Every structure is written in C-alpha cells, then in structure tokens.
C-alpha cells in the first residue's frame, strides 16, 4: 500500500487518444499486486482486447465479458501521462518489445501498479496483435515512476 494513499475519491473525465472520453470515479487506494502471478492480456493490432487471463480479470475488477472486445484504454488511469503510451505504441508499431511501469485503474476506481512488457505477435510474417504480460514491481520502482509521471502530466 502506498504511503500517500488517502482513500479519497474524485470524479474525473478521462479523455482518450481517439477523441472519446468517459466519466469515472477515481479512488486513492492501491490494491496490492498478487504474488507469483502474471497478468496477461492480448489485443488485436488496434488495441482491442481479445484475451484476458484470470489474474487480469481479478485485478481489473471487470468480468471477462466486459473486457473482451473493448479498447485496452479501459484501464487507463488519469495519473498516467499520455507520453508514456505514445512511447508504448511507437515502440510496438516498430515491431519492438516495450516495457514500463503502469498505474492501472480498476472498475471500482482504486488502482494497481504493474511492470508491463508488450510484444508484437507475428504469425507467418504478419502482425496479428499484441501480448502484454505484467509482473509485480518493486516499491522503489513504483515511487520513482510516481515522481517521474507527475512531472510529465
């Protein structure tokens, strides 16, 4: 649990890259990353979720039906700077592996930090989608990311 957590909630409008937006409740409360698990999802080439494992479902707070077919930005937290995701897309669209620390928004408004890796899925030479695998980050990396991202907002 982060020391700075207040448990307070606020109403925000999250605006996405594609021009859409949604209203969301954001609660300042961290949910700890489960030990020993990997959170796995896959998307099509446009970032639409095609697969989510049980750890993904449990941590995001959504059901599988609510996740499959929607844009991966459903997890976007307003504290994440958009340049982080611009870097992600630039890297994976160039066919390379990306990793970084991401603060994710749960359905109930609370958050969880992950160390994420995203790779392009190539089949018979063609891009068919992307796979993201997240693991548990260290507290020091979370703190450094919090500080860095605050300067990028």
């Amino acid at each position, binding site marked *: 649990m982060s020391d700075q957590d207040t448990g307070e909630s606020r109403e925000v409008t999250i605006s996405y890259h594609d021009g859409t937006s949604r209203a969301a409740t954001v609660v300042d409360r961290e949910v700890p*990353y489960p*030990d*020993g*698990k*990997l959170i*796995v999802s*896959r998307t099509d080439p446009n970032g639409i979720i095609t697969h989510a*494992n049980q*750890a993904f479902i449990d941590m995001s707070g959504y059901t599988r039906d609510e996740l499959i077919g929607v844009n991966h930005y459903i997890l976007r937290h307003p504290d994440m700077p958009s340049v982080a995701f611009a870097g992600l897309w630039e890297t994976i669209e160039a066919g390379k*592996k990306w990793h970084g620390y991401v603060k994710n928004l749960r359905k109930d408004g609370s958050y969880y930090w992950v*160390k994420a*890796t*995203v*790779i392009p*899925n190539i*089949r018979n030479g063609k891009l068919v989608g992307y*796979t*993201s*695998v997240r*693991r*548990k*980050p*260290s*507290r*020091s*990396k979370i703190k450094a990311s919090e500080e860095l991202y605050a300067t990028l907002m």
Partner: protein
Amino acid sequence: MAYNLTVSPDFAPDHISGWYFFNTWLQRQLDVGVHLELYDCFEKQRSDIRDNKIDMIYANPYDASMLVRELGFKAIARPQERPDETVIAVSAESTISSVEELQAGITVATTDDPDVHTMGMIMLEPADLDGSNVTTKEVDTYVIVAKNLLNGNADVGFFLKDAYDELSDLIKGQMKVLVSSQISVVHHSLLVGPTMQEFIPRLEERLFSMHEDEKGKGVLQSMNLEEWEPMTEEETEFMIDLIDTLVIE
C-alpha cells in the same frame, strides 16, 4: 534409418526408465526405429538440436521458441495438468518471511533449468534484486539446491514446483516457501521436427488415446504423466510469445 528422440534434461531422475518405456512404445506405434538420447545439460542438447541430430523432443518451454520459430518443429502434445511452476524457498530457520525482505548481496541456489531460473529471477524483482546484485550458485539438481539452503551455503533457492513437492518430508520440513508461481500456461511439450512430420497424424491418434489402454497407461505412469493433451499451433505461439516477454533483452 533410426530417428532420435530426446528429453529436456530437467526430467526427474526417478522417471528415466519411463522415458525408455515411452521410446519402446513409440517405436511400436510408428513401426520405425527411434533412439532415445539423454543429456545431463541443456547446452550440449541445444548444440545437437542445432546440428539437426534430433527429430523429436519433450522440451522445456524455454526451448520451444528456438525449436518452433527457428528450426521448424511442431508442438503436438502437452502433459495434462503439468504446468511448470516455480517455488522460491528459504531455510525454515531464516528470519525472512517474504520476498520483499530479501536484501542485495544474497546468494541464490539454482539449476540450469531455464524456465525455473527465469521465473525465479522475476519473482525476486519486487525486492529490487536482479543479476547485478545477487550471486547465483548453479548446481545440478533440486536436492542439491535444498542442501545449499539447509547448510547455509545459499540464502534462497529456486525449485521447479513438481520437484519441490517430490522432495522428502524431512527436507521439506526444514524449508519454507516464500512464493510459488501460478502461471498455468507455461509447460513442457512434445515437439516433432521437420524430418518426422509424416508421422504426426498417426502419432496424434496414438498419443491422445494412450491413457485408455493398460500398456499405454503403465508407460505414462512410469513417466509420472496422466495423459497427453493436444496442443494447437496458436497455443504454442501464445506460450512462446509469453516467454518472450519474460526474458531479459
């Protein structure tokens, strides 16, 4: 002409004879000569694979990428309910009770089993530990990993969960588990090389019904497996992609 079958060197020593029974069973089913070549280290096995000396392999998930994407092997089967999971343990007397309490400078006892080692290192990351600030001591077997913990020559040990579970109660009683992975989609698989593709239909037919007759069932038991399950090309690719995200550049 005889074909060559090999098994990932991390198989449990107690089940060596099971692989010889499997080899005999295989030759009967396919009506061809198959020679079983066993290795005690991954490196020598990999170099023989690259020299095209191997036609069929029960492979570690970590090697599947090279076999499928570089050498044209096809994964056809996996053992039912046998995911490769990793355990990190310490001596029961250790004051450490969670990974986060571990400090830079510790010694890790591990084997050359690539998927267990990779997962073990990933599970140390929450403590800011990596190859630069831990000393790794590579030993031959999981029993030796345990011994290193018990006699204080290592602070933590990495184990394949199946191997940890098979240790004697006496040894297990002197250790405690800090974390156990729950990945479930990473596992060993049976792969067939380009030289044996013509046998795949027959092989699949026999493998997937192997547990239904007495003889086949006995062979499976001696390998400590329940039954073979089909593996689709996409499941294989998914597993390889997933492992790809775990390996350090």
